[in-house]
Each structure stands twice: as C-alpha cells, then as structure tokens.
C-alpha cells in the first residue's frame, strides 16, 4: 500500500511524511519555498522532502527546479548545513535551472536531525 492510500492528505502534508521517513531511519532533507516573485507555480510554504536513499515527495515548483533542489538536498544531507537557494532570472544559475514561467523564488533546504 502506498503512502497516499494510507492517507490521501499526505499529498500535501510533506512534513508528516518526512518525519515518518526520519523515524524509519532515513536521512531526510526538507526543502521549503520561502519567497516567490512573479508567476511561480507553488506558494511559500510548499515543501519537497528528499531522503539519502532517493525517496522524494512533494514539490517546490511545477517541476522545473526539483532536480536542482534534490541535488542541494543531497549536499545538505551530507554536510548537515542548511542552505538558502535562489532561483530566477536574475541568478546566473537560471541558465541551468531557471523557471520557465519567468518567476523567481527562494528555497530553504535543511536536514532533519
């Protein structure tokens, strides 16, 4: 049975799912949208949880930056250091992983201790 069948609300309750993964002994990083400008698909507070073993749940965008955020999450799992990521047209990283919608956003990545 998948997590969603256990509790359909978990499609939005990423924190509860992340906490459960942590309890299962996984290393977990949590990415949270903290600020958006322009047409960003997901509001502040949207979350993506990533585990050391590669499980992933939730979203911080319409899919355009999830890959980059997952990479940053893996780094935070290794280092234990939280990071504030900046995505958008004013950022040179935008050439790699910019938001197709033209929006800008900040994402905070932290590790669950």
């Amino acid at each position, binding site marked *: 049975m998948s997590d969603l069948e256990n509790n*359909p609300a978990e*499609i939005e309750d990423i924190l509860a799912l992340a906490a459960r993964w942590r309890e299962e002994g996984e290393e977990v990083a949590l990415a949270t949208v903290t600020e958006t400008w322009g047409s960003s698909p997901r509001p*502040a507070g949207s979350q993506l949880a990533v585990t050391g073993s590669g499980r992933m749940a939730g979203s911080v965008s319409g899919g355009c930056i999830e890959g980059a955020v997952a990479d940053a999450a893996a780094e935070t799992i290794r280092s234990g250091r939280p990071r504030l990521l900046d995505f958008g047209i004013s950022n040179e990283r935008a050439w790699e992983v910019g938001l197709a919608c033209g929006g800008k956003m900040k994402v905070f990545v932290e590790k*669950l201790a």
Partner: protein
Amino acid sequence: MTPEILKSLAHARAGHQPVVLATRIAPAEAAGAQYLLPDPAAPAELNAAADAALAADSSRTVRAAGAEWFLHVHNPSPRLILVGGVHIAQALAPIGAMLGFSVTIVDPRRSFASPERFPGVALRTDWPDEALDELRPDSRSAIVTLTHDPKLDDPALDRALKSPAFYIGALGSRRTHQARLARLAALGHAQPALARIHGPVGLSIEAVTAPEIALAILAEIVAVRRGAEIGAKAAA
C-alpha cells in the same frame, strides 16, 4: 530541524492548534535556528509577525531581530462536514481529504454512517443539529447537506446558517431548494442569510456520477475558499 521542534510541531498539529514554525534563513552563518510560535521566549516582534501570518493564513519571509525568518503557518485543516452518509459522501470524503480537509460525516442512520462505507472517516450518528452544536463550525468550515430528507437537512442548515461557516451547500434540485428556503424562512432565517446556501450545490459541470458530483461540489468549495470569481448560476 531538531527532533524536539518536529515533535512539538506534530503535537500542535495533532491538537488542531494554530502555530507558526519560524526558521532563520539568513544570514547564512546563523541559518537554521527555529522557534515554534507563539513562544514567550522568542523575540516579541517575531511573535507579532507570526500572529499576523496566522490571521492571514499565509506563510512568508520577514525581517526581525536582525535576521531574515521564514514563517511557516500551520493552521488546523479546514473542515468539511457532510450531513448524510450517502453515495456522494463516499466520494466527497476521500477527495475532500486529498484537498486537505478534515472530513466528518453526520448521519443518525447507522446503516449510512457506517465504518464499512467510510473507512477511516470521523463519523457521528447523533441528530445533525446536536452534532453541529458540538462540532461548532467556524470560518474555516464547509458544510454540505446531502440527505434530501428535510428532517435531517433542515436542522443542519439551520445550525449552519447560525455559524460563520465559509461555505454552506445543499444537495437538491432548484424546486426542492425553493421549498427548502421557504421552510428555513419559516424558522426565522431572512433572505440575505439564506443566500449563503449554495443550492443546487456545486459548479455546473454536467456531473452525472457520484464522484463527478463530489468533484463539482469540492470545486465550488475551493473556488469560494480561494475567492475565485465563478459564474453565477442561472436564476432559479
């Protein structure tokens, strides 16, 4: 995030307590510190900003105490109270849960409000007016009557109209709805209040099956909650 913060947050959410998780996100060398607000030990301006974020139900970044903080609002789930454990309710309950609503079914007919028909859903088998008196719907509650039986629907709608529920819907045709409004008027509900009831319930999407009708109802609830402009239905 420390296990202590995670545990306190889970505890607050399980107890339907409105809280804000404040995380220091800048400067980088001090990032990661957290408070679960309200907390008398936290800076006063941070507590005040958390109150404002809770009231607006909107997570945001603020500057306080010489740093940048992300305030993550954790308000209790909005509630969806369904009067009538009917077929449409069986579709409304899981779709409502997926949309983040905490769902309660009210139906004194135990063969309708049975755990077999509603696995894992909160069920009440008291009379709808008594149930609503106890549930005390607030401005984050939606109430939908589905029984088609005035004995059950009317007392529920009476209590719903006396509550600040953000959405009230009643299943039934235009003709049924007119008769229902006349009965509620006889109970002392005046016209502007009666206009709060969405009837016929749901957006007009030519829904046929129970899940389709549930989708139409929930789409209307979401539209009202998010302040979307939705086309007015043709006059009854």
